């Protein structure tokens, strides 16, 4: 089966976030039993780099290209009863598949690797994101409940203006709204009471009354995850409503935060 290896190798060595890295000794798997003097297992020290659900290993730390890749889907990570201390194994659900036995330098390193690898699957990450999405939705709802029920600004075309990071050129962080400042230049109408002198770490500013916001350009937040309950289902009703709520709050909040921070700065000479 072909794989876009050049791109994969490039991804391995580029400066995208690394979840974990370090030296590990990798057990050499022999497929044939040649007539060796002894059948002891041997290990080779390699530089390992974990990016998402991909575990790359390099011959040397400075190597320009990975020697190999272990795709970490459908696997478990467990401590190993090998002869070696600080050994752990990556095992796949597929019964006939070989396990990868790796040996860390010490207890702490082993624990760190096992922890990182256990959380490396795409599904795990998706669950975490989904959970945070829900938390944000809850937070939005409780804030909305605190203030009067909000009047939504006309937003027929707005959803499309508000791009998500997937539509932006690839970048590490979502962009912050810049062009909203011209609208808010004269201060916030509607008399928002902002807790801007309270030493400020814990309380976010209260939600102001509804206003029309500037047409959004790059508000770089993601649309709700399309976690399908079944394959090929389109965006569900739930995510459609949430994304509207999300767009509406997201833009406002980005602008408010900036203003709040500016007031904070002015309050601290």
């Amino acid at each position, binding site marked *: *089966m*072909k*794989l*876009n*290896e*050049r*791109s*994969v*190798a*490039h*991804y391995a060595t*580029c400066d*995208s*976030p690394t979840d974990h890295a370090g030296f590990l000794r990798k057990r050499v798997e022999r497929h044939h039993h040649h007539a060796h003097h002894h059948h002891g297992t041997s290990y080779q020290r390699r530089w390992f780099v974990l990016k*998402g*659900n*991909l575990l790359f290993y390099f011959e040397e730390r400075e190597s320009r*290209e990975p*020697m*190999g*890749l*272990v*795709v970490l*889907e*459908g*696997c478990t990570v467990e401590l190993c009863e090998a002869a070696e201390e600080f050994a752990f194994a990556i095992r*796949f659900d*597929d019964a*006939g*598949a070989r396990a990868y036995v790796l040996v860390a330098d010490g207890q702490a390193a082993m624990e760190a690797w096992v922890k990182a690898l256990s959380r490396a699957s795409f599904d795990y*990450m*998706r669950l975490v*994101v989904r959970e*945070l999405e829900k*938390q*944000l939705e809850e*937070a*939005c709802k409780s*804030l909305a409940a605190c203030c009067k029920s909000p009047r939504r600004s006309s937003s027929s075309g707005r959803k499309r203006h508000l791009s998500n*990071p*997937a*539509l932006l050129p*690839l970048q*590490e*962080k*979502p962009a912050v709204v810049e062009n909203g400042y011209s609208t808010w230049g004269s201060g916030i109408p509607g008399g928002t009471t902002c807790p801007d002198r309270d030493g400020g*770490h814990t309380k*976010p500013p209260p939600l102001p009354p509804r206003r029309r916001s500037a047409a959004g350009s790059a508000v*770089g*937040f*993601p*649309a709700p*995850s*399309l976690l*399908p309950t079944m*394959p*090929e289902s389109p965006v569900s009703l739930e995510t459609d409503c949430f994304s509207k709520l999300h767009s509406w709050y*997201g833009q406002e*909040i980005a602008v408010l*935060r900036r203003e709040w921070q500016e007031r904070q700065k002015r309050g601290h000479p």
Partner: protein
Amino acid sequence: MRYNERELLSLARQPAEKAAEILMRVPKKGSVLKKRLVKLVVNFLFYFRTDEAEPIGALLLEHCRITKEEENVFSISFIEEPERKYCFECDSEEQCQEWIEALKRASYEFMRRSLIFYRNEIQKMTGKVSPLK
């Protein structure tokens, strides 16, 4: 570069986010559009001959660019080689847009950005800091 092909093949058999028969062209000289079963599983796009159980190939969808081309057509290319495009011709504009949206979200990097964003937003709203992972 070695990789655990067996596990990738196993992954190709998992339930897909999205799967469809789509005309596909690989960025190879003289290559033409061919009908393929295209299947999105986690951050991999597998493509099969329509009557075969094992995929011809897989594309890791990290650091890739999904571009709308002409009508019904989108392409996938990778950052370091933007001219080398895998082209996909869908049955309809709607199908084309659905695939573009799904593929743009189908990377671990996208989820990472989402995570950071949500975490920051929650912190701003509630003052609570949640762990990154």
